[in-house]
């Protein structure tokens, strides 16, 4: 049976020792090990920090929190309403439902932030409706996905497969792998200046999760393409996919430009972020088999090096993100 298709509820309920797609067993296990709970972090500790942020810093923080808070369950919706029902492989289902579970945790985490800092709930959740550029980012995904959910795309036809592939691209690659990564940088810049450390410890955990969700997406897309080589015969479709990614970068850059303008926030300037986004986008393109578009092979945000090496926490000072679940 193909990776996506129509199945009965009786199908695909048996795990095999030799799964057809072993990578999803691996991704399921990795996600399982990464599970964490917001209660492990002491968000309350950052309240004084939050109060001492300058207006521009606060605005950036609020927007980043708002964007995540109103996107986490959207990511879950896309998977739940559109993708999960057409998955045919039991391990792939486990991997993607674990991702859906993790989005709960993320939502919950931002909910705790919202409550701890006494943020305006309406404003936070409405930011993707009221900020024109943020809305555009989210609309890009919503428009395309709403067209195909609830069985509107037939996974047994080539057209349906292309639609489903596109929705995963928008969700797991563009939303989680581009837009989220942009906001990650804002959070890590905060920690680099010694601010909001416990919140950012949580975001570090989210980064681990999202990098796994990104892999879920890449694996799903590569698998669909491998099983249906006709997809890449359609040159226009392929070009479209590539263009969608590049357009998304453009959208993100517009947003960053208005946020950062000609100044720095948390020690970061627009120029650096532009290069960073292009660097991330190139990597997404390469991961999907495209040639890079921008030719940037070094991450200009050097403080992100700190996310790449082993970490030792001073336990009495900052919530630790290094304990494993089992």
């Amino acid at each position, binding site marked *: 049976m193909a990776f996506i298709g129509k199945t009965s509820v009786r199908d695909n309920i048996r795990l095999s020792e030799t799964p057809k797609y072993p990578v999803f067993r691996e991704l399921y296990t990795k996600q399982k090990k990464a599970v964490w709970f917001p209660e492990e972090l002491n968000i309350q500790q950052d309240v004084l920090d939050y109060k001492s942020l300058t207006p521009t810093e606060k605005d950036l923080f609020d927007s980043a929190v708002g964007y995540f808070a109103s996107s986490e369950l959207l990511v879950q919706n896309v998977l739940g309403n559109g993708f999960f029902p057409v998955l045919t492989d039991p391990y792939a289902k486990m991997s993607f439902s674990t991702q859906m579970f993790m989005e709960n945790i993320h939502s919950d985490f931002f909910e705790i932030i919202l409550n701890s800092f006494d943020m305006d709930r309406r404003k936070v959740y409405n930011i993707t409706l009221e900020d024109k550029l943020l809305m555009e980012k989210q609309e890009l995904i919503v428009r395309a996905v709403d067209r195909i959910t609830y069985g509107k795309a037939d996974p047994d036809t080539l057209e349906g497969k292309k639609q489903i592939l596109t929705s995963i691209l928008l969700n797991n690659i563009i939303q989680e792998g581009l837009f989220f990564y942009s906001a990650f940088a804002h959070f890590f810049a905060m920690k680099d200046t010694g601010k909001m450390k416990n919140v950012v410890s949580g975001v570090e955990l989210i980064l681990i999760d999202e990098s796994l969700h990104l892999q879920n997406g890449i694996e799903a897309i590569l698998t669909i393409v491998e099983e249906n080589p006709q997809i890449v015969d359609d040159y226009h479709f392929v070009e479209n996919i590539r263009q969608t990614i590049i357009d998304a970068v453009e959208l993100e850059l517009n947003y960053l430009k208005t946020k950062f303008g000609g100044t*720095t926030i948390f020690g970061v300037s627009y120029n650096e972020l532009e290069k960073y986004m292009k660097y991330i986008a190139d990597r997404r393109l390469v991961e999907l*088999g495209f040639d890079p578009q921008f030719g940037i092979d070094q991450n*200009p945000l050097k403080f992100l090096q700190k996310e790449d090496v082993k970490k030792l926490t001073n336990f009495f000072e900052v919530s630790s993100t290094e304990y494993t679940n089992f």
Partner: protein
Amino acid sequence: MQRIVIKRDGTVERFQMKKLVDAIFALLEGLDLPDDYEIVFKVAKELDLKIPEKVTTEELDYLVLKAIEHLIPKNFIYDTLATRQLLKIINRRIDKRFNSFKEYLNYAVEEKLLKPELLNFDLENLENAIDYKRDYNLDYFGLSTLKDRYLMKDRNFETIEKPQWFFMRVAMGIGNTEDEVIKIYNKLSNLEYLHSTPTLFNSGTLTNQYSSCYVNVIDDSLDSIMDKAKETAFLAKYAGGVGTDVTRIRATGSKIHSLNAKSSGIIPFIKIFDTIVNAIQQGGRRRSSQVMYLQPWHLDVEAFLDLRETTGNPYFRTPSLNTALWMPDELMRRIKEGEPIYLFDPAECPKLVTAWGEEFKKEYEKCIEKAEKGELNLWKKIDSRDFYKKYLFKLAKTGHPWLTFKDRHNEKNPCPQYSVINSSNLCTEISIPNSPESTAVCTLASVNLAKHIKEDKSDFDWDKLKDTLETMVVALDNILDKNFYPSEESRKNTMDLRPIGIGVMGFHEALIKLGIPYDSEKAVETARKIAKFMRDITYTKSEELAKERGAFPHYYQAKYDYPPRRNAVLLAVAPTASISIIAGTSSSIDNYFSNIFSRDTLSGKFIVINKPLMQQLEEKGLWSEELAEKIKAHQGSIQYIEELEGKIDKSLYKTAYEVSPFRQIDIAAAFQEYIDQAVSKSLYIEEDLRDKMEEIYMYAWEKGLKSTYYCFIDKTVKGEKYTMNVNKRGERRGFGLARKEEKQLEKELEEIERQAREKYGDEVVEAVKSGNIEGCPTDPLLAKICPSCE
């Protein structure tokens, strides 16, 4: 892009890169560098990207700092540069306010930040002793930490203390005479030893609280619980860590006669302390913390193991508290031999609380007999192996409770006539007799072993080490009489026993300098030799002090067969988490965590590089950016980097997880042989060895450790490598397949060619296709078939 600088007075000027470049060159002054241009060029390149259109002068200083900081992992020179830039930022602002150390002191006394008595010293004399060049002893992480948290701030949180002023102010709060002050200043500013964080924070200030740790005991009564809650709140307020023994509190279901009701056990009471600590943690420079100690025969022990779980009923969870087990030998023996463990209610078996060793065994067996005869109301028999397994699982999962050994602590108790030792402290290195009426207090300092190596690196500089250790004994003993005691119980304990705790840091760095691998028998011998030396020197000094100042008062009230000394206990090896950062060395007796790693602290996140490794590689001309990337890609390990094979002694630079946990224990045990209090030892366990945890902790007990501390297990899931390229696609080509499908492209090209021929005729098209035209065609249609446009 035209950039502008907004100056401090509000005026605007055009941004000039040249000015900035000159300033960076100025930072390099005095450093003999082969290629300073390249260094400045790299920084300027980083900066160009960072500087926005509008920038203030202050921001510019900060961006220069950040630009340099980001280059630190590439070469050690950037660490020096960043340190100098940060110094420049600190000094410039202070110089605007104070012309001298004396002016600063006067201001700080007036503002009620420092004690007025400091002004009684001959300030001229002290000012002359200050050597600003010693700022260069600090590395960037150390200086950042100092600036962020240790240097004195005014009421508006502006830094008003230069690093050397800080060392001198700390020394002035400790020394009794100017000679003592200068001696202490010299040692501190050369990073030869450092006092613990509370001393560095508060020495010479009106807060006046020098101690790191308090250890109290809660009795089995509501009165006592509430009294200790209040005591804990005050101890925590002054940034002390508190260790608390809760073993006496009766278990769940135990009868309360005065109410004719049943007790709800220890957990709800522990929860009270969780709330207190959490309330006091808000806004502190260092989070106050508490650890609860329980002997594992207590009937509520199973719920105790779950306190740090993050799921389940929040009323039975204590996220702000730490927990530890105070484990008697008899229980370890039962675990080892697979005999069952019995759990009891301390209200019914009160003797178990203070009995230890053979006496505990006898009492425990008596309780078992009673239980089996049906004479006890509350008891439970459990499988000891299951319990041990479950306990270690919790330790790996939640980091708690730590494992400490009741009988090891008590058999070395120098003052058994005073009291038993009821528990250890927050970092498990304290071992001082205490009771509900007497709260143990310990004031700590740690010698930096890496600064006590002979010039030729042949051996430790034993004379210098002796001198430092003697200075430390005097300094710590001085502190006991200057210290503020937040409770009567804590004053009493100190005035009876005068305990101090001298520990170490930089052990691994020292080993590297001496060419001894940490994971070797030689390292164990070295540990033993150092510990014995520390014991001999400090005891002799304390005995000398006793002649001058008298022995600890309890000594005269009891009969002990050792000569009078000033302090009941003198040695304790603390984790030195923060002060080893200031000293820029490996912490405590631990191995370097990794050769490159990041550290999360209250001051933010920093990249730490194993400096001795970097220096050695640089000396041999092996250091390069590519190598740095390779080490990063290997998670900080150099063991599998082929190009270093045979070039350096790799075994010197194992990461913490690469050192056998059994060796880690051997080294701690070697120190423990001579350390009169305890050695706080975290264990680093490679995930593959996780199945051996039972064996590892059994070994720790058998080797005679008094305490273990955190258990780190290497986590295998990491985030996407942010700055390195990872190919997730593998061999698959994904959309790359599309480009190989050129048929479609060809078809499109044919179509274009057809249209072009229609429009321009065959001649033009042929000319374009063969490239025989001048320049490329501007027509989009023709451009698509032009070979040089492709």
